[in-house]
């Protein structure tokens, strides 16, 4: 069994990689790359040559190409000692046109051009964009840069190799003096013992030189123990949630800030919503602002905040899991009764219901349901994170359950009827068992086996949310992430979400098979039994 599952998992891994590759080919090579600026507010603030360099730097940030501006090249020369600091300014000054370069600058520009041309880069020089009176337009300064496209396979390799990031004490560049690099285990978590005099028991592992300050800690939020050793990096978002990783976008809490009186490492007591456990390192950030200097004792200043809502996945999962439970509780017994009293009144009503759900567009019945729920039962029809009203969950849960109920009814009835016609049932009947006994002891157990196969899938996919339901009730869930990303041409999010879906679907199929073999001893995945 274990060997079989490992084989299946490897197989699944292969298909996940293939899916991601297909999606990457679709969006990185077929789609026009300039579309990523469609949802970028900064893009419209740039003009002329500045816009070109902005485009290039964004392309680099999103993995399309390698981009080296001339100034970076000069800086690296200064660093390596080839160029003195005194010469830097005159060398870095690019003339409005090539003819206007100073002699020294022209030499280095030539050197830059030759060097990067030999490495396969394209060197671009844009002359100054002049107004009619000879002055330079806004953003029209002359620019010089080299760029080279990153081929898709390199990009894919990079994506997969950087997906899992292990935090280590050499994360902060070794050039920076950060004190002793080490991991420390403490029983007195400083967040709960800010002055060092309290004796609150809270074990934690802290690091110096790592990206995260706290690598393992406890707090009052689910799942109570948190780790930062391993970070999952599914791809950076551009427009949907700028600069934030897809996985974080899906799992970070939303809503409004929850303020509490808290003590910062410096001993400063303030009403803030900062979650000190999430502190990450940013070079020189403590000295950058007064606020940071008053609060923090080191450069671990980048903290997330406590918010009152759940994460995107959280909302989707709560709604999804309740609707799954509701669907199984209602769908299976109704399907069973429909088969038990075939051609009866319940069977006829149920068939009409199934037909209605299959045939009518889901949009139509969800809207219909929303209208009925709102006007007849006076339930809240829009989701509001701040209200804390539990009633607002009812309509989305029921709307999401409607099609699952129909589906379960349909299959349960089908499987029951198939079983009812099988020989062992006829034998049991001829042996004198009552219909009730046949149903409760034999038929439904056998009919349930194929149903069991779908349970892990429906639970797991409760996390991904439902596009239409969440849109109609304005639930801040994960269902709309993919459509949002597509609408805003946020390629990083598209790839990340697809990968997430693919992993879930592979896992749910494997779990379904395992579940099925546990319920039905006749099914075995070991080679011997076959």
């Amino acid at each position: 069994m274990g060997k079989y599952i490992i084989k299946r998992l490897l197989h699944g891994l292969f298909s996940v990689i293939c899916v991601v590759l297909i999606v990457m080919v679709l969006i990185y090579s077929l789609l026009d790359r300039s579309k990523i600026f469609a949802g970028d507010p900064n893009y419209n603030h740039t003009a002329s040559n500045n816009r070109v360099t902005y485009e290039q730097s964004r392309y680099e940030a999103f993995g399309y190409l390698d981009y080296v501006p001339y100034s970076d090249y000069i800086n690296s020369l200064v660093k390596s000692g080839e160029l003195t600091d005194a010469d830097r300014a005159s060398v870095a000054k690019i003339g409005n046109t090539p003819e206007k370069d100073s002699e020294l600058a022209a030499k280095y520009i030539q050197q830059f051009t030759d060097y990067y041309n030999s490495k396969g880069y394209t060197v671009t020089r844009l002359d100054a964009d002049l107004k009619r009176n000879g002055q330079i337009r806004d953003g029209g300064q002359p620019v010089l840069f080299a760029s080279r496209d990153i081929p898709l396979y390199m990009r894919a390799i990079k994506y997969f190799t950087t997906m899992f990031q292990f935090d280590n004490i050499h994360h902060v560049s070794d050039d920076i003096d950060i004190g002793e690099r080490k991991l420390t285990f403490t029983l007195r978590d400083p967040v709960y013992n800010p002055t060092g005099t309290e004796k609150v028991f809270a074990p934690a592992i802290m690091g110096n030189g790592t990206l995260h300050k706290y690598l393992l800690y406890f707090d009052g939020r689910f799942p109570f123990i948190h780790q930062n050793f391993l970070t999952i990096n599914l791809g950076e978002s551009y427009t949907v949630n700028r600069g934030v990783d897809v996985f974080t976008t899906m799992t970070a809490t939303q809503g409004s800030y929850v303020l509490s009186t808290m003590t910062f490492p410096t001993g400063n007591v303030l009403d803030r919503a900062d979650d000190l456990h999430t502190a990450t390192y940013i070079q020189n950030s403590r000295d950058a602002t007064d606020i940071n200097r008053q609060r923090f004792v080191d450069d671990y200043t980048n903290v997330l905040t406590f918010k009152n809502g759940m994460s995107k996945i959280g909302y989707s999962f709560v709604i999804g899991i309740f609707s799954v439970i509701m669907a199984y509780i209602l769908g299976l017994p109704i399907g069973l009764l429909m088969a038990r009293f075939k051609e009866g009144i319940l069977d006829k009503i149920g068939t009409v219901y199934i037909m209605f759900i299959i045939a009518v567009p889901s949009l139509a019945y969800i809207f219909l349901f929303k209208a009925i729920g709102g006007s007849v039962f006076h339930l809240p029809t829009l989701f509001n994170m701040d209200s804390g009203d539990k009633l607002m969950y009812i309509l989305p849960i029921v709307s999401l359950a409607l099609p699952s109920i129909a589906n379960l009814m349909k299959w349960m009835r089908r499987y029951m009827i198939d079983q009812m016609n099988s020989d062992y049932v006829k034998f049991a009947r001829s042996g004198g068992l009552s219909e009730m006994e046949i149903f409760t002891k034999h038929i439904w157990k056998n009919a349930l086996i194929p149903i069991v196969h779908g349970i892990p899938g429906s639970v797991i996919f409760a996390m991904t949310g439902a596009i239409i339901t969440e849109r109609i009730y304005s639930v801040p869930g994960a269902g709309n992430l993919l459509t949002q990303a597509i609408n805003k041409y946020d390629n990083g999010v598209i790839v990340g979400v697809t990968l997430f879906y693919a992993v879930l679907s592979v896992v749910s199929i494997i779990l379904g098979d395992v579940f099925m073999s546990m319920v039905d001893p006749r099914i075995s995945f070991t080679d011997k039994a076959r």
Partner: protein
Amino acid sequence: MDKELNIKYNMTDEELFAPVDHNELESEKITAPRYSYWRSVFRVFFHHRINIIILALFLFIIIFAYVYPTIIHYDSEVNPFINLMNPESKHLSPAEAMNMFGKNIHWILGAGASGESTFDSIWYGSRISISLAFICAAINMTVGVFIGAIWGFSKKVDIFMTEVYNIVGNVPLILIISVMAMLFTPSFWTMVFAMTIIGWLGIAYFIRTQVIIIRDREYNLASRCLGTSTVKIALKNILPFMTSVIVTMLATELPSYISYEVFLAYIGMGMSEMSLGRLIYSAEPAMVTPGWEMEFWSPVAIASIITVVLYVVGQNLGDASDPRTHM
């Protein structure tokens, strides 16, 4: 001897009482009532009165979607189908519209956001949606059934195609459609392309499973032992079994394309043509405005009626095309 018989048939006694030729070949023939498959299908189908009503409704929809816009020369950009200039002609209830423009079939559902007749635009939109559904279904079913048959018959193809199915099945369909829409202009034919590029795969997989079930039945084994060619087994032994399965599947496929088009349009990825989905999408703000609900609910209702009618006709035709119901 009975002279009358001799006279009646103009035969002598010897001729009348001559023994009949015993034909070995003739005696092998089995006489049975003439059975025509398709005639029986329609006999069973029309046996249920409800089917006649549904079919009439279906014809009614087809006429309104395909003939009505042609008769009134519908063009969504030309008066009198649009009254953009007149602010008083927008968002009218049926009664208001009839007061304003006169009692006329065009205004029985009121007027929409640009002063157009909701009734006319719904039927024009239905035409696009129904055409999309039929074209997509035709392409997907043809390709799917054909490839599914090969997939089921050949074990080598099976290994390869199952792998392809497992991989491609994980790519979100909405992603493929939206990439198509972003690559090309989101026109009718882009939508057809996007819906068919991997849409056939699910159908092919379904057919493959059915073929595998029937392929190894005893009567096919016997047929193969007697030397029937694979093509003949496929066409004569298996295809008749599949007809009802295919028709039943068509019954779920056709409405699903309309539903999917509505869904895509609603999330903002629909085509540029004024299909039913686009109508629903653009009328969504009207739903929450008192007095304007008609604009939203009427295309939703028509879309639902169309899909239900298509589904019921298909299901019942599927039942009727199962030879076991022909007794």
